[in-house]
């Protein structure tokens, strides 16, 4: 029995642009999309990677935009793209057997300060009745289902910055088990709410390179000092390869392996030995029935934090005993889209398989001596790529690893 699950549709909205092609071109341009962000004006860290080209009203009904928060706009737009890419037209499949599983890292925090002020002053009648409905994570999957008539399983996975990965993993299993014929899966998040920014700033997680936003996200570089907040969404259509062929859909790539694990260590710091990530890598490779030497490229979590990058690099070096394949870190270019980031990595891994090229890691001017990896820098690297691994980690010690292959 073929255990692989096919990716037949891709939708992407990122700081590099709206759509898979725009995102790919942006990644390969070798630039960072970080810039001063008016939404964060006055805060200690006032820059981010915003999806600046994205106008929700250009893609969605105005009424939908009015009653939902940006993470839902991003998810809906990416889902529409994915459905179109997969030729998922009405009647193409039984709606009862189409699921939606999305990863969202946290509630949208955009409106909470206003609600909090109203609570403090007792002006309860001025609190929007939509305050909750527009911001709870499950609404992204719910809105996608309503717009695309997907009546199968519908829920949201929350595991911080690994959310989108775990959503894809659960979706993969819904296909493998025969529960669904198709699942739209991925992640969405807009981390640019001031409450989110100040929380990460107080935590010491963000880069403070205000004088040089474009140089702030620099995974594996010796001068890195934290990550850059981003936003975006990636949604993919998953189905069995046979199902895809039967309905004439194009298989872009297959998910051959998936591994999930916990560090079981600390709320925010990865285990110093990388034991959780190592476990997830081993599980994903075993699931794919492949060895480390079969992996042609790794799309790393690589957030640009001083501690996290070194632990990840050491873990990859120790796990891939014959030497890790070329590594890149997309967050150098796109920033950190939190709950969407893992799904964006997977979607871009599919694009890497399509284009047979590894996008560069931006801003690696002086690779950290503690990072003994072949980091792809400056320009894309063309090479034969049949198998890609993605690694993603989240607060709480959650890890999600994927192995993707050409069809």
């Amino acid at each position, binding site marked *: 029995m073929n255990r692989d699950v096919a990716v037949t549709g891709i939708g992407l909205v990122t700081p590099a642009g709206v759509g898979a092609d725009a995102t790919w071109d942006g990644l390969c341009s070798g630039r960072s999309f970080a810039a001063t*962000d*008016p*939404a964060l004006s006055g805060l200690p860290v006032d820059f981010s990677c*915003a*999806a600046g080209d*994205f*106008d*929700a*009203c250009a893609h969605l*009904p*105005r*009424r*939908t*935009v*009015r*009653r939902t*928060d*940006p993470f839902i*706009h*991003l998810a809906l737009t990416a889902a529409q793209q994915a459905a179109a890419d997969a030729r998922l037209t009405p009647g193409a499949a039984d709606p009862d057997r189409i699921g939606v599983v999305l990863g969202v890292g946290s509630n*949208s925090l*955009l*409106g909470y*300060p*206003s609600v909090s002020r109203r609570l403090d002053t007792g*002006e309860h*009648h*001025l*609190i*929007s*009745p*939509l305050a909750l*409905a*527009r*911001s709870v994570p499950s609404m992204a999957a719910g809105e996608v289902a309503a717009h695309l008539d997907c009546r199968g399983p519908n829920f949201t996975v929350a595991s911080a910055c690994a959310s989108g990965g775990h959503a894809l993993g659960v979706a993969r299993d819904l296909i493998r088990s025969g529960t669904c014929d198709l699942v739209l899966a991925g992640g969405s998040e*807009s981390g*640019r*709410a001031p409450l989110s920014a100040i929380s990460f700033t107080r935590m010491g997680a963000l880069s403070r390179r205000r004088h040089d936003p474009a140089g702030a996200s620099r995974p594996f570089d010796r001068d890195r000092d934290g990550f850059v907040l981003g*936003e975006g969404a990636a949604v993919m259509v998953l189905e069995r390869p046979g199902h895809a062929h039967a309905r004439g859909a194009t298989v872009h790539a297959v998910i051959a392996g998936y591994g999930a694990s916990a560090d079981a260590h600390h709320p925010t710091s990865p285990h110093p030995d990388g034991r959780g990530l190592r476990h997830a890598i081993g599980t994903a490779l075993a699931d794919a029935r492949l060895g480390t030497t079969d992996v042609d490229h790794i799309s790393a979590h690589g957030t640009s934090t001083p501690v996290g990058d070194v632990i990840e690099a050491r873990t990859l070096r120790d796990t891939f005993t014959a030497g890790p394949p070329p590594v890149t870190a997309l967050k150098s270019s796109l920033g950190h889209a939190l709950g969407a980031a893992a799904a964006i990595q997977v979607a871009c891994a599919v694009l890497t398989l399509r284009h047979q090229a590894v996008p560069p890691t931006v801003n690696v001017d002086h690779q950290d001596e503690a990072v003994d990896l072949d980091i792809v820098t400056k320009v894309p690297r063309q090479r034969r790529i049949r198998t890609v691994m993605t690694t993603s980690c989240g607060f709480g010690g959650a890890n999600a690893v994927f192995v993707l292959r050409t069809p």
Partner: protein
Amino acid sequence: MQLTCEEVIEALARGTGMREEELIPETRLADVELDSLMLAEFATVLAVQHGVRVAEVIDPTEATTIGDIVTAVVEQARAGGAHAGAAAQEAHGTQGRQGRQRTPTGVASQGSAP
């Protein structure tokens, strides 16, 4: 407190995300799928922007027309449904039309307002 029909229509458009030209007096709520949640949001917009409490005079049943709502709100405001004061001043000062911010995705921010 006086509210003009134009002001009510503007608030209705803002509260529901509909275009003002879609808000025709004869149109029934059922025809444009306006539900009670969106009408409650409209009432909150009126409270924030104009200091008027109108929630109790809005009939959310399907047969109600846009014209019914506008008339009811204008009459309620005239009859003393206004609660002008700090709320309205704050609305105009920080959350009103002039002060409306743009969200990260370029859409008029309603996540933080009203």
